């Protein structure tokens, strides 16, 4: 079995959230997907991607339009990849190891510079076996809640390969969002549509010699 690809490493962490810098520009995991941070303690932390952004490494830099045709920019400014970085934030939804996962807040924040990977299917199943992973996702101030819940639930549903968990997650969500009926209704409607009818994620653009 090949080694899982490193998505990036932690550059900021607290008990609730992780900030991760991607090792490759524009190669962040999808919004709403599950990630795993491998910590030296042996206890991994799991999170759901809540925001992806790309910007200058140096806060003094101003990104501006260069008005160059596609392809020309990469040729004319070969140093651009070293000035930019892609980061993403993830809401911690649980922790665990090879023996199992729980949807709860870990005792200690993840250490900085730990590597981050896409969570494996079995790990997502372990985390979402109970609906507790949904509660932290409803507590993120600036995230588009409906989109986040739909994306995370789709990812969980794909990991299970069936809809058997949807009723359990839905009932729990109905209690969590009892004051936000509009969002709840939106989530249910969108989860009711077949996945194939929804637009897929855009593949990361090839950039500066990257091929995937």
């Amino acid at each position, binding site marked *: 079995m090949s080694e899982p690809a490193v998505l990036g490493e932690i550059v900021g962490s607290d008990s609730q959230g992780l900030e991760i810098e991607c090792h490759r520009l524009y190669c962040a995991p999808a919004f709403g997907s599950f990630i795993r941070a491998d910590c030296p303690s042996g206890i991994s932390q799991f999170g759901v991607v809540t925001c992806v952004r790309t910007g200058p490494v*140096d806060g*003094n*830099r101003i990104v501006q339009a260069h008005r160059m045709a596609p392809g020309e920019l990469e040729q*004319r*400014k*070969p*140093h651009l*990849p*070293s000035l930019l970085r892609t980061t993403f934030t993830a809401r911690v939804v649980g922790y665990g190891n090879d023996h199992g996962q729980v949807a709860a807040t870990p005792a200690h924040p993840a250490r900085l510079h730990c590597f981050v990977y896409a969570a494996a299917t079995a790990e997502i199943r372990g985390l979402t076996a109970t609906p507790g992973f949904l509660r932290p996702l409803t507590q993120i101030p600036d995230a588009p809640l409906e989109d986040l819940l739909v994306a995370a639930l789709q990812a969980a549903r794909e990991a299970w390969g069936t809809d058997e968990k949807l009723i359990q997650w839905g009932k729990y969500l109905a209690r969590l969002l009892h004051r936000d009926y509009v969002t709840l209704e939106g989530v249910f409607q969108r989860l009711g549509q077949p996945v194939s009818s929804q637009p897929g994620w855009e593949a990361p653009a090839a950039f500066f010699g990257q091929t995937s």
Partner: protein
Amino acid sequence: MLDLEALVSEMHGLAEEVVRSVEQTRAQRTAGLQQLETAGALDHLRDAVEDFKQDMALPALGLDMRETHPAPSVDDYTVMATDGSQVAPDYHHIAPWYVINSGCAVFRYGAPEGRSRAHLASYPLLKPPGRALRTADETGDGPRGTDARAAAVGMPPVLEVDRLKEELNLACRLLATEADPERTVLLLDGPLVQWRMLDTLRRPADRAEIVGLFQRLLTQALESRTPVAGFISRSRAIEWITLLRFTLCPEVAAGGGLCAQCRQTLLGRNEEPRPGDHHLALAGLRDIELAGELLRDQPGRRTAIVELRSKVWSELTQGAGTAGFFYMNTGTEIARVELPRWVWQDETLLQRLHGVLWDQCQVGGGYPMVLAEAHEAAVVRGPDRDCFYALIERILIERGVSQSAMSAKALSKRRPMA
């Protein structure tokens, strides 16, 4: 805080002066262009300047000063630049250590196999304060001593010297490790050689070291056939105008040498000629103003090369060469480019330099991108400086040095009270 209201009326007064100066300059520019025509037709001008035996500009051998040249197209190339910055010693802090931070940028267009397309790096060097303090005191090179800019920002000249040494060392390393044969250009931020600093350095050891580094850099560049040039934005130089003022002397115009009166006054302060001086008409005009007129609306174009005779350069090359300069329309301003003679005497090298400069200016919005990035690599901004001092504090406090070692002034600045 700055009370801007208190400055507004003075600003209006100064603005009037600026307007008057612009109108005067406009007339002088036209006069300058006419004089350039006259000077270009004087076959004996170079000999006349050489007879004057002073450090000044003179027509480059075989080149017509009146000509201008469009930027050539450029093939794949490598361009490199260095710059430097510093954290000056602050004697109000817990330990007045200082830092020299040299930075570089290397870009390769159509990179040779195995070579990276871009390389940005900075090399910080931590220095104890002893040398900066001691030598400044011992030699009298306080901030009033050698360098006006250093004085203006309260930077000890020794720090400037250290910074220049590191920049030159880095440029030498770049030439050795990053230059690609027959396609590379090395750019320095500012003059090709720090003429003024070399003229005013008091410590013989510093001077010898700087001269040695410049010699090493120029030798390496020559041996590797890498054009090296100093790029000066918004230059205030007047050498070219001084040469034209030289030709305003009636004896020079008549085919002879400089008259006795002009010999006395020509190299005095440019802005303050005496009434009746032959060269009065162009006094106060700057080279870039003449070049701006000559290269108006012609982005990428450059003036002819003008040679610059100086004792410092003669010392650097042990009499074997001279330096020169041209002006170039970068698209947003007129820049001065200083280069050694062996570059302009080799048409391939000169074309490469000009083409690369123009390409870099285009991609850099009127300023060579490689120089801008070398600056970014080197620059130490306020937050970096704060972190630097915070780190010193932490390290010393860990070793039992009390925070009270900071001056009361520094502490009060850190925590201003209301």
